[in-house]
């Protein structure tokens, strides 16, 4: 069932058993789980079904600290969320990502990878992926022409990615959500405040506003924030009527530990003429089902005391300069890409998209995808400017540490040595990677992955949510999405956040039973 909140009489009260705030990958994954249940579910989405500049402007924010991509272009504010322009990259976190690593301050999840596996399995079809197989050998068995480079897996191994078509949650799941009698989707319903009870032990309602000036209330037994890492933190911080620091923020953790993946080129690989066809590492958008990336073994991470990381091989023309994500994917290009997709990819793709790899190329850009160390000083705060709904805008202070810098450099050094040792080829480091001055280049780039602002920890002094994703101290408020990640590994976050959402959904079903 769908209702546009702008059509409701001002002051309406919406009631349900469960209220999910945000209809992106996390929120929709959860809502789908409840279709046909005896419980009534509210799914509140700030945007509509289409891209609207005024709605998108609500995500605009201030950038302090390291340069970052415009916030209003990094996330999409409509039904389906940022899956509206994601590229579909999926892989699993590694077991080491869940461990407490003594050389990575604040590392360690309260759950193990094995506990997430059943939910990864269930997440695969939602993202229209293949079987839950992420070993290179499995994909080589399916296609013997996929041959991994002859590297020592104790040093560098081939980690597999699967590619979603990519699933646009907005178009793919609109019909089942709208048709579900027990799931009440309200669009243009922006939650501006979580209202706690007097003792600040539970949420008793939500204030919902529309851009045309209406204000409604939503009430439920349980609430789930699924608005993305920046907006989850912003909403908790801005809900400061009863506690000046905001809800769930007794220990000043909300908004802290904002993490990205450091995604940028660090060098190039010249493949030896007798090396195997690197088809296993190639990717053609919309065609390739799976590919490998070169990943650092956990033993090397331990020995060298560095973070997790992978590199992808992107075919390059001689003399071609590799660009980072933030360089090539301008907001204008992303907008053109969305338009092109909205029209069924009719006509030529927008100029500026990466070209398909030239056949037979032996030269590859090595694009890193590196974990960022959890850092309390890297954070989302409230700015002084307010948006059209009178909410304080977000302020992003993205910061990296020396561990991030050193990990990047050691990773490329290890790669250079191992690729040379194996005879697969030789690695050339970019100028800035050769320097020892500890500085990042002007091309510093993330992967548009926002993680960690409501981190998970069993102890409320160290985490905003517990292992079930419930906000410490608030009995009926949960968080879904990558904001709960204590660490982000070196994989794109969508598969894991969908898996965690399914896990949370199971927990809430047991709780409501």
């Amino acid at each position, binding site marked *: 069932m769908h209702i546009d909140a702008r059509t409701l009489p001002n002051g309406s009260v919406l009631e349900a058993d469960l209220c999910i705030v945000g209809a992106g990958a996390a929120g929709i994954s959860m809502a789908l789980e409840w279709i046909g249940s005896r419980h009534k579910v509210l799914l509140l989405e700030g945007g509509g079904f289409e891209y609207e500049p005024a709605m998108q402007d609500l995500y605009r924010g201030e950038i302090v600290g390291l340069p970052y991509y415009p916030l209003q272009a990094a996330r999409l504010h409509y039904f389906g969320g940022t899956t509206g322009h994601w590229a579909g990259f999926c892989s699993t976190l590694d077991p080491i990502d869940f461990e407490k690593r003594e050389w990575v301050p604040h590392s360690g999840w309260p759950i193990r990878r094995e506990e997430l596996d059943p939910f990864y399995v269930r997440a695969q079809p939602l993202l229209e992926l293949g079987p839950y197989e992420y070993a290179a050998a499995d994909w080589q068995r399916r296609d013997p022409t996929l041959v991994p480079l002859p590297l020592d897996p104790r040093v560098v191994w081939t980690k597999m990615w699967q590619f979603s078509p990519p699933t646009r949650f907005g178009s793919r799941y609109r019909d089942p959500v709208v048709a579900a009698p027990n799931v009440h989707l309200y669009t243009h319903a922006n939650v501006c405040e979580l209202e706690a009870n007097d003792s600040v032990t539970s949420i008793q309602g939500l204030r919902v506003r529309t851009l045309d000036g209406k204000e409604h209330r939503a009430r439920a037994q349980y609430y789930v924030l699924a608005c993305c890492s920046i907006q989850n933190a912003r909403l908790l911080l801005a809900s400061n009527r009863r506690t000046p620091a905001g809800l769930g923020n007794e220990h000043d953790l909300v908004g802290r530990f904002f993490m990205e993946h450091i995604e940028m080129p660090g*060098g190039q690989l*010249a*493949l*030896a*003429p007798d090396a195997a066809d690197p088809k296993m590492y190639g990717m053609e958008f919309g065609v390739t089902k799976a590919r490998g990336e070169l990943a650092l073994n956990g033993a090397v991470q331990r020995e060298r005391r560095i973070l997790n990381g992978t590199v992808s091989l992107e075919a390059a023309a001689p003399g071609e300069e590799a660009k980072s994500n933030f360089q090539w994917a301008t907001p204008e290009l992303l907008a053109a890409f969305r338009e092109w997709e909205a029209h069924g990819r009719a006509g030529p793709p927008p100029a500026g998209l990466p070209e398909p790899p030239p056949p037979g190329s032996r030269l590859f850009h090595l694009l890193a995808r590196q974990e960022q160390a959890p850092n309390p000083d890297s954070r989302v705060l409230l700015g002084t400017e307010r948006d059209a709904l009178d909410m304080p805008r977000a302020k992003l202070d993205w910061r990296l540490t020396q561990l991030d810098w050193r990990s990047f450099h050691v990773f*490329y*050094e290890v790669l*250079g*040595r*191992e690729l*040379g*040792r194996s*005879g697969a*080829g*030789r*690695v*050339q*480091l*970019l*100028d800035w*990677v*050769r320097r020892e001055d500890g500085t990042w280049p002007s091309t510093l780039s993330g992967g548009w992955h926002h993680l960690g602002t409501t981190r998970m920890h069993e102890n409320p002094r160290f985490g905003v949510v517990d292992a079930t994703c419930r906000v410490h101290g608030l009995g009926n408020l949960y968080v879904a999405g990558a904001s709960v990640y204590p660490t982000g590994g070196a994989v794109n976050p969508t598969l894991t956040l969908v898996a965690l959402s399914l896990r949370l959904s199971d927990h809430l079903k047991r709780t409501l039973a």
Partner: protein
Amino acid sequence: MNRRQFLGLSATSALFAGLTGSACGAGTHAAFDLDALARPDLLSILGPDVVRAIGLHYRRLVPGENQVPALHGAILATRPWPSRVPWPVGPSIADMVHDDFAAGRTIVVQGWVLSVTEARQSALFSLLSA
């Protein structure tokens, strides 16, 4: 320096490297004659222009190895086998390059992560292929 000039210096080379009898017989083992040393496998990966540039930069980075004899001697001196071992059972240049990488005996020249042996070979190439 051309090949003829080098031959005139080859004895000096051996002396420079402190090598004894059998080591001076580098030319008796195909893998270690001058042609082989000055033709690094790197050529097949990077091509002659890049290898020559690497060689030039290596010579600037390591001024003590800016001459053929010094380079030749340095390569031979790093062979792990004692000189009394007959050459044919010793490691090939490819083995030495592999072992360099495995042991972390690498050097970054013009950004390329290289085995020290192949960097020296590149320097030889830059001297002898001009």
